[in-house]
């Protein structure tokens, strides 16, 4: 078995039908390791979210294969994909998607509840997760009582509470101010220090690359750049598969 958390090979995704058909992703190869924070950058419509959805087992590729923690997604039905997400994936969304009628703690416990962890165990784990994101004092607060940054931190706590191998964040700082954005990225970078977790962050904001171990560029459904190294170490640049761009 490979040491990659997520491996995608030759992934192509076609959306729509007939005249409305769009090749959202074209023959993508990408692997994510544990202990790394990878930033995926690209302009609007470049296929970032589609790629995130496929790597996160929400969509399956039209062509190619995706393996998450050694499990292949090809041919999996919706329930099997849901189980893969339940077992291995945590998501952080741009709009937080917290449940407005549940407290911060309950929002986090919900991620455990769907995995069969209930009661005191779930309450303790949600408390730990909130502590990790610095919101232990907001345990009983409802989302409308939290700032945008705090809501996103609760969303991160929800994503990590079940200890998933892969954490996918879709534009997690897009609606936050710079300070809150930096805080969120700092938390995600901290999570990614653990070799058991691989973090992929989709963002428009080039300032966030300073937190990344690796930056991948996507344009028109193709990966066009793969930079390794931390901030200011952009020299290690590999242009990948440029020949495949169409």
């Amino acid at each position, binding site marked *: 078995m490979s040491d990659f958390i997520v491996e995608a090979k030759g992934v192509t995704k076609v959306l729509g039908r007939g005249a409305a058909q769009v090749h959202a992703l074209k023959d993508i190869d990408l692997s994510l390791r544990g202990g790394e924070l990878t930033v995926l950058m690209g302009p609007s419509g470049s296929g970032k979210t589609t790629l995130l959805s496929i790597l996160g087992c929400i969509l399956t590729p039209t062509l190619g294969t995706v393996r998450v923690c050694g499990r292949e997604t090809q041919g999996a039905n919706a*329930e099997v994909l849901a189980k893969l997400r339940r077992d291995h994936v945590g998501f952080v969304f741009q709009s937080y998607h917290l449940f407005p009628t*549940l407290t911060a703690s309950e929002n986090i416990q919900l991620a455990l509840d769907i995995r069969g962890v209930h009661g005191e165990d779930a309450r303790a784990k949600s408390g730990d997760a909130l502590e990790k994101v610095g919101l232990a004092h907001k345990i009983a607060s409802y989302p409308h009582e939290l700032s945008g940054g705090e809501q996103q931190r609760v969303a991160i706590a929800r994503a990590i509470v079940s200890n998933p191998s892969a954490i996918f964040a879709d534009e997690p700082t897009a609606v936050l101010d710079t300070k809150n954005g930096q805080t969120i990225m700092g938390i995600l970078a901290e999570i990614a220090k653990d070799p058991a977790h691989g973090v992929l962050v989709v963002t428009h904001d080039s300032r966030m690359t300073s937190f990344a171990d690796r930056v991948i560029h996507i344009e028109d459904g193709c990966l066009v750049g793969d930079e390794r190294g931390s901030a200011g170490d952009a020299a290690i640049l590999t242009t990948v598969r440029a020949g495949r761009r169409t």
Partner: protein
Amino acid sequence: MPLNLTLASRNLFHDRLRFVATTIGIVFSVVLVMVQMGLYFGFGRMVTTVIAHTSADLWVMRHGTKCFEDPSLLTASKLTHVATTDGVAEAIPLVIGFSGWILPSGEITPVFVVGSDLQTLKPWNVTDGTVQALSTPGAVAVDRTYFERLGVSGIGSKANIRGLPVSVAAVTDGIRSFTTTPYIFSDLSQARAYIGIPSTMVSYLLVKLRPGADLEHVRHDLQASLPDSEVLTPAEFHERSRSYWLFGTGAGAALFAGAILAIIVGMVIVAQTLYSSTKDHLDEFATLRAMGSSNGYIYSVIIYQALLNAVIGFAFATLIGFSVVGFTRSGALPVLITPTLILAMFVLTVVMCVAAALGAIFRVVRIDPVMVFTR
């Protein structure tokens, strides 16, 4: 409390207006079904109340008699034959029939006269006077409910039936007829005169068996020797009367039709509100799905919501149902709500609400979790 139940209850109570509208819909539906079924049971009990208060082992009646109020007659000569049949301890003649009660003002109102030995069938719930006093010439028992209709005020009040003077000697409480025609109890000979039945005829023969006699055996012997008559047990006559009035007349069908309509209305209301609530929470269900929740978990949230609706709606509906019972207790047709009916109504309410949740579940099944990235 399980978290999916917490989520369901918070979603339910979050939109108070919708919650109130749903609850009203369920209450409306359940009360309607409960009252219709309560009327059905009340009606069923009322049309058989005299049979239920008669202490006979067998009823002998003219062949084809449909119900207790059926005016078919038997020849009184059968009395001796029945009384001398092996196993029979006693045969008591009973006459029934409509007559005219003449008020002191001269107006006439119809009454239903029941005349017997005042032992096997006697008025019950006597609140004033005595049954024994009915053996006095001209003595009758009337129900308190019909005082105004009969122009009487209690014991000693005078009137006429078919020109014969009568005096109220006993007052009952709660012996009402679904036809709203008052029952008048008297002894056999006076009842004949009030109705106009000759001494050669009777309406029924009430049979009491000797101790240890085999009921089926006696019935078989009586039936074999009385080919133009029928011999029924009280339970059989009870069921025949009930079936005739409920189904032979269409009254029961109307009550059932009302109940079914109420169920449909309730289901539509619950389905509509649950569907609309689910649509409003689609983002949340999509988030749950994206997080890896199974479909079953999401269904459980929707079904818990439906069950909460059912329990709350049922609780209010039961309170209203009991108010209706109290309100109709002294009316012409009391609503009868039994523990079995309450249990059946609870099951029906739960089934109705869960079935109504199917529309919302079908909507959730079609959720694409990828929508969480676009909102």
